[in-house]
């Protein structure tokens, strides 16, 4: 394993992964953006609804980042499987 598999991704993939992971930090740490009562989502004031919505959002973004970063399983190399020290 001279070149670790994760390193062989394109710069484009790395940019996408960075954006996916940074989005939630920007979205939740910029407090003035959501520190208000309206517009309400049903009975939920904006402040509460907005932050709660980030929870499913971060799950989806992290999953996309995982799919992008994942090393596809090599099918034809049983040698690499056998080394799993369990």
């Amino acid at each position, binding site marked *: *394993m*001279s*070149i*670790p*598999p*994760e*390193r062989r991704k394109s710069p484009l993939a790395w940019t996408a992964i960075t954006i*996916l*992971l*940074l989005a*939630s*930090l920007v979205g*939740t*740490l*910029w*407090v*003035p953006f959501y*520190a*208000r*009562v309206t517009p309400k989502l*049903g*009975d*939920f*004031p904006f*402040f*509460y609804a907005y*932050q*709660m919505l*980030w*929870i*499913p959002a*971060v*799950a*989806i*973004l*992290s*999953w996309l*980042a*995982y799919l992008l*970063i*994942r*090393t596809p*399983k*090599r099918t034809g*190399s049983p040698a*690499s*499987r056998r*080394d*799993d*020290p*369990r």
Partner: protein
Amino acid sequence: MSHVNYVSFTILLVLFLVVTLTGFAAARWRRAEDLLHLNEWGLGGRGFGTFVSWFLLGGDLYTAYTFIAVPALVYGVGAAGFFAVPYTVIVFPIVFVFAPRLWSVARAHDYVTPADFVRGRYGSRGLALAIAATGIVATMPYIALQLVGIQSVLTVMGVGVTSNAFLKDLPLIIAFLILAAYTYVSGLRAPALTAFIKDFLVYLAIIVAVLYIPARLGGWGHIFGTASAHLAKTNPKTGKPFGAFVTPPAGEWAYATLALGSALALFMYPHAITGVLATKRRDVIRRNMAILPAYSLILGLVALLGYMALASPAVTKGVKADGGNAQLSVPLLFQHLFPSWFAGIGYSAIVIGALVPAAIMSIAAANLFTRNIYVEFFNRRATARHQARVAQFISLLVKIGALVFVFALPKTFSINLQLLGGIWILQTFPAIVVGLYTRWFHRWALVLGWAAAMVYGTVEAYRQPAPGQPHSHFGGSSAVVPVLHQTVYIAVTAFVINLVVTIVLTAVFRAARLPAGADETEPSSYLADPETAPAPTESVPAQG
């Protein structure tokens, strides 16, 4: 609260018994050749897949902090307590980035604790000692928070409410002794297996609570309306409003830095790192970062239980009757709005939800002490068996240390126990996380940066009085930063001091050519994965 409700009490007792038996039986689960080895006792054999890890990490990270401390803060001050939601949102992308590297290097070099890694990376026993000691000290108030959580349930149930100080704490002590016993026997397997029961109870109790309670209290609109009106009223104790329904401009810095500081700090805690290192593969960690937010959803909903409690006159009366102890708000809500049998399930969720992480925390702190203090400085030739024995014993001592924090610190808002731990543990971030990427920082600069931040953080936290008690200490976790003129979480200010001192001194020490120490890790260790890259062995032919 003078008499015990026997229905709730019996349910709690039965479920506690089930958890206890499971905890002892866990020693036989995925049976190891020899449980008396730190890889087995302390890391569960390093073989947990996505599914078990999800429960273990969930059981590990969502604690009495979630079920008692956060809703108590929301109950007391409103929006400011909701910072826990952005905290548990951003923690996952942050950990997604660095945890796989830590996992790989730990697997390649057989590291069990974060201080093991620091020792190997920087060749510095002193720095490793600082990291280990910080981990142990910071874990104690976090375990203390679990005790406060259990205590608040017992108080509401009327168990141990007598004037006799010994009898008062007896149920808590018994619960803790049993926890200590099965942790001692089964190690990390115990909390991993009991985490299944814990999570089932938690999801059940919370989902029922958010569907059932608002309907009984007149709907979400009414709950938010009551909370908003109450928070705007003046608190007679402080002469200021109780809190704010939406973070005011003056509170924005505190809100954001509490979320950011807590998120950066969480996976520096030894128990969180233990959960990461116990996984089977790199991918397991990343996959878990995408599915763990399910617990954050629970956290957000539990936070709102604080507002439901405000909307229930019976609960606010009960809190006032106990000297304004906001920690009681969720157990009281269960007591007054659920039938007693389901209240019993709710109490069990809280109690077991505190015991499981307390077990993992004490195991992790024990690993730290054994590997990085005992073996390093007292007995270099300790066998694996002997090490596991020492760790078992220390796991008991750590729990006793936690009791000291319970009795010594003000309990206006128990969340400050966790935030105090955060102030300390965040100061290990530069050595651990930055160390995963670069060796540029000088080991002595890291020690001095850490020391400066620890002193600043501890002194500043000591100086914070609890609201309405001007002469108390350790009563808050945010302080005004002189130049910035904003209120900021002390952990973050200390972290900035830490980084500045470390960077400046690194430049100085490197210019003076002070010895940098040996680095035993190789760049490939940080990406190793048993499936694609059989750990550090050489001569594997290049692929593709």
